[in-house]
């Protein structure tokens, strides 16, 4: 069954090819069926592969399929192979499974769009690239997938390219990601220089057996560079600014790419390279620190945003911060577990918000919503489940994964991590319920034109919602504390240190080892407190937020304007780069480069003209050239010795 793994990649590629090449001539329905069918088939194969893997004994759960050797030249070998192990098999299930639901949802959501086939072509292509990223057995293949998902993300953010904001957002995403990718590429090169191979198995084997001391300088640089790539792709400080803007894309895209799959690529990559990261405590600290700060930072921005999708975007950044925090303290399986549950409930939330937007004919501002509970009941119920899940109320999925991260951050990290994470959890519960209350509860603030068209979404949109709601409800049981199926399943990949053996504060281990249940109570309490506050502010006393905003004007303004980070970046980097490039353009480019390029072009043109004179069309001239050439060769042979 494991041999089928190639098919998982093949189906989406075929789907993309058919829709891309012939989509214009196909009927809309056919396009949708092809796209969904491709992902469905590949989901089916993914399940088969997963089962095949589970049937193996745990220590043998690593299957590599060499597809072909692309180029072999000297010591450089570019092979293409796929790797199925617990980590990648879990990822392909998430990607194809959630992807399949989102594809179905898209049929309804995008039905009126004239770029229907283009959309599905991109979406299939994205799924292919993401699977390539996850399944590749070496860094080069992963990098190709990494770049390809970036490209698809660019295409899909800018899907409605007639809108300037959308094409700007696409450009921003692309450029910001380039910064990260630069680091990633450098990291891969350094890996090749250090290990003389880019194959995962070989690199990790060499890293663990090769006598690299913990804290080795090269490894630290490698891991930092790789993490730089991860901050770009997974929207962490300082490269997170593209993700909120990326909400310009269609909502299912936000659900698939910018919540469930692509943005988690960074987490996947770090989990995949856990052997390297474990060798560098410094990088681990950086990862954990940036993760924790991002979690809190993004959550605080989310508190005051009014655009429903932007709130979710900041929430995504914040949750990704959690995952990095988990990886940073060495709890890779907790990170991956949260990745999975987050894929479920965040996809659900995005699709739910899409359903709301769909119902309100495109309205995204929560101040113009409210009281939608009765009008779109299915959306409301599923959305509620998603909100509860992300807020971390037991027994929903988000509770178990987030609780595990909180626990690990205390046990293997320190109190600072824990308190930041806990505060962020409080914020999360608050802003999510704020979103819920503003959208579904209270008085309706909906425009009455819009009100007339208010309708529940069609079946093909609500079905995925319900399935995802089910997953958000029960997905957490895979990681029950103490009997975590996920932990034991992933343990071969993380070599037993799913829970880190290194601990940055050894004392903490003993301190709280006996209190997982106490921790659960605390984190539940935090969540409930956040929900309660939101209830107070947005249901009980709807005038309170206004008052608070007036009172704490400065903080409110800073939060609303997202700490002015975009403005700061603009002033610091964008403008200075612009100014610098203007200078370069005026002075260097126009005068020197253009001058020389034009000169070269003129030279080539001149040369070309001379050649044209040579090309007379007369046989006698051509014969003469042959004679000249002959003499030239003779001269070379005679005197060139």
């Amino acid at each position, binding site marked *: 069954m494991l041999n089928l793994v190639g098919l998982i990649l093949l189906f989406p590629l075929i789907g993309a090819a058919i829709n891309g*090449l012939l989509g214009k001539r196909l009927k809309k329905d056919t396009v949708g069926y092809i796209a969904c069918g491709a992902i469905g088939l590949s989901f089916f194969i993914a399940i088969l592969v997963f089962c095949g893997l589970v049937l193996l004994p745990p220590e043998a759960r690593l299957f590599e399929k060499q597809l*072909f*050797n*692309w*180029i*072999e*030249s*000297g010591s450089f070998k570019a092979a293409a192979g796929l790797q199925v192990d617990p980590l990648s098999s879990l990822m392909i299930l998430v990607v194809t499974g959630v992807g399949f639901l989102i594809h179905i949802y898209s049929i309804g959501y995008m039905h009126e769009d004239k770029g229907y086939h283009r959309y599905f072509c991109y979406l299939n292509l994205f799924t292919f690239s993401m699977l390539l990223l996850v399944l590749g057995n070496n860094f080069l293949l992963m990098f190709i997938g990494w770049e390809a998902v970036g490209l698809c993300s660019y295409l899909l953010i800018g899907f409605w390219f007639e809108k300037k904001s959308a094409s700007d957002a696409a450009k921003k995403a692309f450029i910001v990601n380039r910064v990260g990718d630069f680091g990633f590429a450098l990291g891969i090169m350094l890996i090749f220089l250090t290990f003389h191979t880019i194959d995962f198995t070989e690199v990790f084997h060499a890293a663990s057996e090769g006598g690299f001391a913990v804290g080795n300088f090269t490894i630290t640089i490698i891991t930092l560079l790789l993490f730089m790539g991860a901050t770009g792709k997974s929207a962490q400080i300082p490269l997170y600014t593209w993700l909120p803007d990326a909400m310009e894309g269609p909502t299912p895209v936000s659900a698939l790419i910018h919540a469930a799959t692509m943005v988690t690529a960074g987490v996947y990559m770090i989990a995949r390279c856990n052997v390297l990261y474990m060798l560098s405590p410094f990088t681990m600290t950086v990862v954990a620190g940036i993760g924790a700060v991002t979690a809190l930072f993004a959550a605080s921005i989310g508190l005051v945003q009014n655009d429903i999708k932007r709130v979710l975007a900041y929430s995504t950044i914040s949750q990704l911060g959690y995952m990095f925090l988990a990886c940073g303290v060495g709890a890779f399986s907790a990170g991956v577990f949260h990745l999975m549950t987050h894929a479920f409930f965040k996809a659900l939330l995005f699709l739910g918000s899409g359903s709301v937007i769909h119902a309100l004919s495109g309205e995204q501002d929560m101040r113009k919503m409210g009281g939608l509970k009765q009008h779109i009941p299915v959306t409301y119920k599923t959305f509620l489940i998603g909100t509860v899940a992300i807020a971390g109320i037991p027994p929903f999925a988000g509770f178990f994964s987030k609780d595990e991260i909180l626990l690990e951050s205390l046990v293997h990290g320190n109190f600072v991590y824990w308190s930041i994470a806990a505060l962020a959890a409080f914020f999360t519960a608050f802003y999510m319920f704020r979103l819920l209350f503003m959208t579904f509860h209270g008085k309706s603030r909906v425009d009455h034109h819009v009100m007339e068209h208010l309708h529940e979404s069609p079946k093909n949109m609500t079905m995925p919602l319900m399935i995802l709601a089910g997953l958000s409800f029960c997905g957490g049981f895979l990681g029950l504390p103490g009997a975590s199926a996920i932990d034991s399943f992933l343990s071969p990949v993380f070599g037993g240190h799913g829970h880190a053996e290194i601990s940055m504060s050894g004392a903490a281990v003993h301190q709280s080892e006996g209190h997982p249940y106490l921790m659960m109570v605390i984190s539940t309490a935090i969540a409930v407190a956040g929900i309660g506050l939101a209830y107070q502010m947005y249901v009980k006393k709807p005038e309170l937020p206004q008052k608070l905003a007036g009172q704490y004007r400065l903080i409110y303004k800073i939060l609303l304007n997202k700490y002015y980070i975009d403005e700061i970046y603009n002033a610091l980097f964008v403008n200075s780069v612009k100014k610098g490039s203007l200078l370069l353009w005026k002075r260097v480019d126009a005068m020197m480069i253009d001058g020389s390029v034009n000169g070269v072009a003129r030279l*080539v*043109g001149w*040369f*070309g003209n001379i*050649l*044209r004179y*040579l*090309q007379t*069309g007369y*046989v006698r*001239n*051509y*014969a003469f*050239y*042959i004679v*000249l*050439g*002959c003499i*030239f*060769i*003779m001269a*070379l*042979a*005679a005197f*060139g*010795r």
Partner: protein
Amino acid sequence: MINASIMTFNILNILPILVLAGFGMIVLVTDVLSSRKWVNRNILAYISLIGIIIAAVLTRSSTGTTLFSFNESFVTDNYSLFFNFIFLLCAGLTILISHNYIKREDINYGEYYALILFSTIGMMLMASGADLLNIYIGLEVMSISIYILTGFKRSKLISNEASLKYFLLGAFATGFLLYGISLTYGTTGAINLKQIASFIAEKGGMSDPLMVIGMGLLIVGLGFKVASVPFHAWVPDVYEGAPTPVTAFMSVGPKAAGFAAFLRIFLTAFGSSHLEWQKIIYILAILTMTLGNVSALSQTNIKRMLAYSSIAHAGYLLIALVSANDMGVSATLFYVLAYIFMNIGAFAIIIVLSRKGDECIQINDYAGLGFKHPLLAIAMTLFMLSMAGVPPMAGFVGKFYIFSAAIKSGYIGLAIIAVINSVISVYYYLRITVIMYMKEPAREFVPLTISPLMVAAIVISVVGTLQLGIFPSKVMEIAQRSILMMR
């Protein structure tokens, strides 16, 4: 004395050639009978294809051995078989793209197919020639057939002119080649490549200046066939004038055959004194690449552009010859195969778009093709990207191997010049893509009629281009095995 049993054994070695010759004659006879009701001209293409397939199967069946026959003047080894396969593929693809074209242009005569088969025989003889005379005979058989094919559009002046030019210059260049052969024979006393090699080894190098002159003249003669600068001047005129499928054929087949002979003569006979000729070929390679690419930049006619591009490709292949190592030879084999797919594919698209009396060969005629015929445009883009050497197309891998071979032999400067050249070439290849996708159509596209044979040719070319680009290692392995036998 001559032994009859040995003779029969020898005949088995040239069986593919005999089969092709037989089918060539069958085609001729069938054609003259086609005034009768029971013979149809349209089957001629199929008859020739059957002949090619049989020859290919026979070629395939004799791999893995090295056999000398006809007094050691003819050799059957993996090297020659690989090239034979290339020639047969080239002839087959040419017939696929010709079938409709020659019907439309009213030049549907059996001689067309027969001549393609005969010139393929000539190429096979060249690749299998173990002595200079045999190579020469092969070259003449190949060339004379192609001279005629070039002028096959008898009523078109430009075609006649091209044919005559090619013939006159070809005869001229052949004179140099023959003179080179006679000087080599005069100084070494042998025409057999191995005997020449052992003679030179005995003398400890090319002591006799006449021998060096002979070698130089051989370079002139073969340089003409592979269209190396400064023996290239005929190429644009002839390529432009010839019927388009013939252009496709001769931009690939004779070039491949020329390189087959070039490599065999210079690596076998003059292999020990490679320093003598490497510097000459080195300069020729630089001139050829650069002049080909620079001239291609300013062309507005796609056939002329491809003519210059084929000159440039000859330059890249000369690099492999300069490297004079195993990797260079196998890279040549790989590159020639890749070149067949991408070049014949590109010409196939040109033929599809042309109409009777309207060749549609201005580059601007391709404006807007991407919207009207997206599949054709994508195929054309693939071929152009491949020729420009963009991964993951066949052309990239081919160039990669050739440049690596140069670096391996220490010709880093040459490799750098080659890379710069392929950067220049990206401009004119991509220009076609840009025009196809970014420009409004300058003309109406009439509904196209594409015959199944043409579809087959384009599909084979696309698949080949991608296959060699994405999964090159298999073919490369075969290519590497081919040269082991040559020693």
